[in-house]
Protein backbone atom coordinates (compact mmCIF):
# COMPACT_ATOMS: atom_id res chain seq x y z
CA UNK A 1 0.00 0.00 0.00
CA UNK A 2 1.27 3.47 -0.90
CA UNK A 3 1.65 6.00 1.92
CA UNK A 4 -0.92 8.79 2.12
CA UNK A 5 1.48 11.52 1.03
CA UNK A 6 3.01 9.49 -1.76
CA UNK A 7 1.65 11.69 -4.56
CA UNK A 8 2.76 14.85 -2.81
CA UNK A 9 6.21 13.41 -2.32
CA UNK A 10 6.35 12.28 -5.94
CA UNK A 11 5.42 15.78 -7.10
CA UNK A 12 8.02 17.33 -4.81
CA UNK A 13 10.72 14.96 -6.04
CA UNK A 14 9.85 15.77 -9.66
CA UNK A 15 10.28 19.47 -8.92
CA UNK A 16 13.64 18.85 -7.24
CA UNK A 17 14.82 16.79 -10.23
CA UNK A 18 13.60 19.46 -12.68
CA UNK A 19 15.52 22.13 -10.79
CA UNK A 20 18.63 19.94 -10.66
CA UNK A 21 18.40 19.37 -14.42
CA UNK A 22 17.93 23.09 -15.03
CA UNK A 23 21.04 23.94 -12.98
CA UNK A 24 23.07 21.23 -14.76
CA UNK A 25 21.85 22.53 -18.09
CA UNK A 26 22.88 26.12 -17.35
CA UNK A 27 26.31 25.00 -16.18
CA UNK A 28 26.86 22.94 -19.34
CA UNK A 29 25.65 25.73 -21.61
CA UNK A 30 27.86 28.39 -20.09
CA UNK A 31 30.95 26.19 -19.91
CA UNK A 32 30.49 25.03 -23.51
CA UNK A 33 30.65 28.65 -24.60
CA UNK A 34 27.03 29.64 -25.11
CA UNK A 35 27.71 33.07 -23.67
CA UNK A 36 30.95 33.64 -25.56
CA UNK A 37 29.63 36.76 -27.33
CA UNK A 38 29.58 38.42 -23.95
CA UNK A 39 32.04 36.46 -21.85
CA UNK A 40 33.96 33.22 -21.65
CA UNK A 41 32.85 31.26 -18.60
CA UNK A 42 35.45 28.77 -17.43
CA UNK A 43 34.94 28.02 -13.76
CA UNK A 44 31.91 26.66 -11.95
CA UNK A 45 31.19 26.32 -8.25
CA UNK A 46 28.42 24.33 -6.63
CA UNK A 47 26.97 25.25 -3.25
CA UNK A 48 28.90 28.51 -3.20
CA UNK A 49 28.39 30.34 0.05
CA UNK A 50 28.27 34.10 0.18
CA UNK A 51 27.81 35.31 3.70
CA UNK A 52 24.71 33.37 4.85
CA UNK A 53 23.45 32.56 1.39
CA UNK A 54 24.26 29.35 -0.47
CA UNK A 55 24.06 29.45 -4.26
CA UNK A 56 23.64 25.99 -5.82
CA UNK A 57 25.59 27.17 -8.86
CA UNK A 58 27.96 30.02 -9.60
CA UNK A 59 29.78 30.18 -12.93
CA UNK A 60 32.43 32.79 -13.55
CA UNK A 61 34.67 33.94 -16.32
CA UNK A 62 35.97 37.00 -18.13
CA UNK A 63 35.07 39.06 -21.17
CA UNK A 64 38.46 38.52 -22.79
CA UNK A 65 38.35 35.09 -24.40
CA UNK A 66 41.46 32.93 -24.59
CA UNK A 67 41.14 31.49 -28.09
CA UNK A 68 44.08 30.49 -30.28
CA UNK A 69 46.62 32.78 -31.98
CA UNK A 70 44.57 35.32 -34.01
CA UNK A 71 41.46 35.27 -31.83
CA UNK A 72 43.67 35.53 -28.75
CA UNK A 73 45.52 38.49 -30.23
CA UNK A 74 42.24 40.14 -31.26
CA UNK A 75 40.76 39.60 -27.78
CA UNK A 76 43.90 41.03 -26.20
CA UNK A 77 43.85 44.15 -28.35
CA UNK A 78 40.13 44.81 -28.64
CA UNK A 79 38.34 43.39 -25.59
CA UNK A 80 38.34 44.76 -22.06
CA UNK A 81 39.30 42.22 -19.42
CA UNK A 82 36.24 42.32 -17.16
CA UNK A 83 35.51 39.63 -14.61
CA UNK A 84 31.94 38.34 -14.81
CA UNK A 85 29.86 35.85 -12.85
CA UNK A 86 26.51 34.15 -13.09
CA UNK A 87 24.59 33.12 -9.97
CA UNK A 88 21.73 30.64 -9.88
CA UNK A 89 19.44 30.76 -6.88
CA UNK A 90 16.27 28.67 -7.13
CA UNK A 91 13.17 30.04 -5.52
CA UNK A 92 12.21 27.77 -2.66
CA UNK A 93 9.75 25.07 -3.64
CA UNK A 94 6.16 25.73 -2.58
CA UNK A 95 6.88 29.26 -1.44
CA UNK A 96 6.96 32.71 -3.00
CA UNK A 97 10.19 34.61 -3.43
CA UNK A 98 9.89 37.78 -1.41
CA UNK A 99 11.13 41.18 -2.53
CA UNK A 100 13.21 41.50 0.63
CA UNK A 101 14.97 38.21 -0.12
CA UNK A 102 15.75 39.36 -3.65
CA UNK A 103 17.14 42.62 -2.30
CA UNK A 104 19.39 40.66 0.09
CA UNK A 105 20.62 38.51 -2.79
CA UNK A 106 21.41 41.57 -4.89
CA UNK A 107 23.12 43.32 -1.99
CA UNK A 108 25.37 40.33 -1.32
CA UNK A 109 26.22 39.97 -5.00
CA UNK A 110 27.01 43.69 -5.25
CA UNK A 111 29.21 43.46 -2.18
CA UNK A 112 31.11 40.51 -3.66
CA UNK A 113 31.47 42.32 -7.00
CA UNK A 114 32.87 45.42 -5.36
CA UNK A 115 35.30 43.42 -3.24
CA UNK A 116 36.65 41.32 -6.11
CA UNK A 117 36.42 43.85 -8.92
CA UNK A 118 33.77 41.89 -10.83
CA UNK A 119 32.24 44.13 -13.49
CA UNK A 120 29.05 42.29 -14.49
CA UNK A 121 26.91 39.63 -12.86
CA UNK A 122 23.75 37.75 -13.65
CA UNK A 123 21.30 36.35 -11.16
CA UNK A 124 19.03 33.61 -12.50
CA UNK A 125 16.09 32.54 -10.34
CA UNK A 126 14.32 29.44 -11.61
CA UNK A 127 10.95 28.37 -10.24
CA UNK A 128 8.37 25.69 -10.95
CA UNK A 129 5.35 27.89 -11.48
CA UNK A 130 4.35 31.52 -11.47
CA UNK A 131 6.23 34.27 -9.66
CA UNK A 132 4.62 36.75 -7.36
CA UNK A 133 3.23 39.76 -9.31
CA UNK A 134 4.95 42.20 -6.94
CA UNK A 135 8.31 40.58 -7.69
CA UNK A 136 7.68 40.61 -11.43
CA UNK A 137 6.87 44.34 -11.38
CA UNK A 138 9.87 45.10 -9.19
CA UNK A 139 12.26 43.17 -11.47
CA UNK A 140 10.83 44.78 -14.61
CA UNK A 141 11.34 48.24 -13.15
CA UNK A 142 14.80 47.44 -11.81
CA UNK A 143 17.53 49.12 -13.85
CA UNK A 144 20.72 47.99 -12.12
CA UNK A 145 23.36 48.55 -14.78
CA UNK A 146 25.84 45.89 -13.69
CA UNK A 147 23.56 43.05 -12.53
CA UNK A 148 21.13 41.23 -14.77
CA UNK A 149 18.19 39.51 -13.10
CA UNK A 150 16.17 36.73 -14.71
CA UNK A 151 13.06 35.07 -13.34
CA UNK A 152 12.59 31.74 -15.09
CA UNK A 153 9.30 29.88 -14.99
CA UNK A 154 10.30 26.26 -15.53
CA UNK A 155 6.77 25.17 -16.45
CA UNK A 156 6.14 27.71 -19.19
CA UNK A 157 9.85 28.34 -20.00
CA UNK A 158 9.05 32.04 -19.75
CA UNK A 159 11.98 34.33 -18.88
CA UNK A 160 11.51 37.74 -17.38
CA UNK A 161 14.51 40.03 -17.10
CA UNK A 162 15.23 43.42 -15.63
CA UNK A 163 15.34 46.45 -17.85
CA UNK A 164 19.07 46.94 -18.37
CA UNK A 165 21.47 45.97 -21.14
CA UNK A 166 23.06 43.30 -18.94
CA UNK A 167 19.63 42.00 -17.92
CA UNK A 168 18.41 41.62 -21.49
CA UNK A 169 21.62 39.77 -22.40
CA UNK A 170 20.57 36.81 -20.25
CA UNK A 171 18.44 35.52 -23.10
CA UNK A 172 21.53 35.35 -25.31
CA UNK A 173 23.81 33.66 -22.79
CA UNK A 174 21.42 30.83 -21.98
CA UNK A 175 18.58 29.02 -23.63
CA UNK A 176 16.21 27.34 -21.22
Amino acid at each position, binding site marked *: MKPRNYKKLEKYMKRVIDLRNFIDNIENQL*IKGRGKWIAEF*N*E*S*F*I*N*YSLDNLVFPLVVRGQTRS*KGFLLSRLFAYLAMPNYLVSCFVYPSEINSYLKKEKLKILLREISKMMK*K*NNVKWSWLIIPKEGEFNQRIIKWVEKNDLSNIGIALVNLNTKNILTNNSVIGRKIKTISKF
Partner: protein
Amino acid sequence: MKKISKINFGDLGKSFSIFFIFIVTLRVITNFLFTKIIIRDWWMLTIEIILAAIVSYIYYRLKYHTTFSYDKEGFILEIGKEKISSKWKDFKFISLYYSGLGKTSLRLYINDTYKDDYIEIPVSDLGLSPKEFREKVSKLISI
Protein backbone atom coordinates in the same frame (compact mmCIF):
# COMPACT_ATOMS: atom_id res chain seq x y z
CA MET B 1 44.48 5.15 0.34
CA LYS B 2 42.89 4.90 -3.09
CA LYS B 3 45.43 5.59 -5.83
CA ILE B 4 44.60 6.93 -9.29
CA SER B 5 47.20 7.19 -12.00
CA LYS B 6 46.86 7.23 -15.77
CA ILE B 7 49.30 7.80 -18.59
CA ASN B 8 48.36 11.00 -20.37
CA PHE B 9 49.06 10.26 -24.03
CA GLY B 10 48.61 13.93 -24.96
CA ASP B 11 51.52 15.06 -22.78
CA LEU B 12 53.55 11.96 -23.66
CA GLY B 13 53.03 12.62 -27.38
CA LYS B 14 53.95 16.26 -26.91
CA SER B 15 57.26 15.41 -25.23
CA PHE B 16 57.97 12.64 -27.78
CA SER B 17 57.46 15.08 -30.70
CA ILE B 18 59.76 17.67 -29.14
CA PHE B 19 62.56 15.16 -28.43
CA PHE B 20 62.20 13.41 -31.79
CA ILE B 21 62.49 16.70 -33.71
CA PHE B 22 65.42 17.73 -31.49
CA ILE B 23 67.32 14.43 -31.96
CA VAL B 24 66.77 14.35 -35.74
CA THR B 25 67.84 17.99 -36.12
CA LEU B 26 70.92 17.41 -33.98
CA ARG B 27 71.86 14.32 -35.98
CA VAL B 28 71.38 16.08 -39.35
CA ILE B 29 73.49 19.08 -38.26
CA THR B 30 76.36 17.00 -36.83
CA ASN B 31 76.21 14.69 -39.83
CA PHE B 32 76.48 17.56 -42.23
CA LEU B 33 79.22 19.34 -40.30
CA PHE B 34 81.50 16.31 -40.12
CA THR B 35 80.81 14.37 -43.30
CA LYS B 36 79.13 16.94 -45.60
CA ILE B 37 76.50 14.31 -46.43
CA ILE B 38 73.20 13.56 -44.75
CA ILE B 39 72.76 9.86 -43.99
CA ARG B 40 69.20 8.66 -44.57
CA ASP B 41 68.87 5.07 -43.37
CA TRP B 42 66.00 3.16 -41.80
CA TRP B 43 68.17 1.86 -38.99
CA MET B 44 69.13 5.45 -38.13
CA LEU B 45 65.48 6.48 -38.01
CA THR B 46 64.64 3.44 -35.86
CA ILE B 47 67.40 4.32 -33.39
CA GLU B 48 66.15 7.93 -33.28
CA ILE B 49 62.59 6.83 -32.61
CA ILE B 50 63.69 4.46 -29.85
CA LEU B 51 65.96 7.09 -28.31
CA ALA B 52 63.23 9.77 -28.49
CA ALA B 53 60.72 7.35 -26.94
CA ILE B 54 63.04 6.54 -24.01
CA VAL B 55 64.04 10.17 -23.35
CA SER B 56 60.48 11.49 -23.72
CA TYR B 57 59.07 8.83 -21.38
CA ILE B 58 61.66 9.73 -18.71
CA TYR B 59 60.88 13.45 -19.25
CA TYR B 60 57.13 12.76 -19.07
CA ARG B 61 57.51 10.85 -15.79
CA LEU B 62 59.61 13.65 -14.28
CA LYS B 63 57.48 16.56 -15.52
CA TYR B 64 53.87 15.59 -16.27
CA HIS B 65 52.85 12.21 -14.89
CA THR B 66 50.05 12.65 -12.37
CA THR B 67 49.27 10.36 -9.47
CA PHE B 68 46.49 11.09 -7.05
CA SER B 69 45.93 9.19 -3.81
CA TYR B 70 43.16 9.96 -1.38
CA ASP B 71 41.13 8.73 1.55
CA LYS B 72 38.54 10.27 3.90
CA GLU B 73 41.13 12.40 5.67
CA GLY B 74 43.21 13.90 2.90
CA PHE B 75 45.04 13.45 -0.36
CA ILE B 76 48.47 13.31 -1.99
CA LEU B 77 48.93 14.79 -5.44
CA GLU B 78 52.07 14.07 -7.42
CA ILE B 79 52.74 15.85 -10.70
CA GLY B 80 56.11 14.78 -12.04
CA LYS B 81 58.62 15.33 -9.24
CA GLU B 82 56.36 17.69 -7.31
CA LYS B 83 54.39 16.30 -4.39
CA ILE B 84 51.60 18.03 -2.49
CA SER B 85 49.70 16.55 0.42
CA SER B 86 46.83 18.13 2.26
CA LYS B 87 43.76 17.50 4.38
CA TRP B 88 40.25 17.89 2.96
CA LYS B 89 39.16 19.97 5.95
CA ASP B 90 41.64 22.74 4.99
CA PHE B 91 39.49 23.72 2.02
CA LYS B 92 36.36 25.76 1.90
CA PHE B 93 35.39 26.01 -1.78
CA ILE B 94 35.70 23.68 -4.74
CA SER B 95 35.26 24.45 -8.39
CA LEU B 96 35.65 22.88 -11.79
CA TYR B 97 38.02 24.84 -13.97
CA TYR B 98 37.93 24.36 -17.72
CA SER B 99 41.23 25.45 -19.24
CA GLY B 100 40.25 24.59 -22.83
CA LEU B 101 41.29 21.77 -25.20
CA GLY B 102 39.28 19.32 -23.09
CA LYS B 103 41.36 19.86 -19.96
CA THR B 104 39.39 20.08 -16.75
CA SER B 105 40.71 20.42 -13.24
CA LEU B 106 39.23 20.57 -9.79
CA ARG B 107 40.32 23.60 -7.84
CA LEU B 108 40.35 23.48 -4.05
CA TYR B 109 40.31 26.94 -2.49
CA ILE B 110 41.54 27.49 1.02
CA ASN B 111 39.60 30.65 1.74
CA ASP B 112 39.02 33.25 -0.93
CA THR B 113 38.00 32.18 -4.43
CA TYR B 114 39.44 35.35 -5.95
CA LYS B 115 42.93 34.75 -4.56
CA ASP B 116 45.52 32.35 -5.88
CA ASP B 117 45.63 30.14 -2.80
CA TYR B 118 44.28 26.99 -4.37
CA ILE B 119 45.37 23.49 -5.29
CA GLU B 120 44.52 22.23 -8.74
CA ILE B 121 43.80 18.53 -9.34
CA PRO B 122 43.96 17.73 -13.08
CA VAL B 123 40.80 15.62 -13.29
CA SER B 124 40.91 15.02 -17.04
CA ASP B 125 44.55 13.89 -16.88
CA LEU B 126 43.55 11.29 -14.30
CA GLY B 127 40.75 10.03 -16.52
CA LEU B 128 38.01 10.85 -14.00
CA SER B 129 34.54 12.18 -14.66
CA PRO B 130 34.74 15.86 -13.52
CA LYS B 131 31.22 16.21 -12.12
CA GLU B 132 31.21 12.84 -10.35
CA PHE B 133 34.59 13.58 -8.83
CA ARG B 134 33.44 17.05 -7.72
CA GLU B 135 30.43 15.46 -6.04
CA LYS B 136 32.68 13.01 -4.21
CA VAL B 137 35.15 15.69 -3.10
CA SER B 138 32.40 18.06 -1.94
CA LYS B 139 31.13 15.28 0.34
CA LEU B 140 34.65 14.71 1.69
CA ILE B 141 35.13 18.43 2.36
CA SER B 142 31.85 18.75 4.23
CA ILE B 143 32.58 15.80 6.58
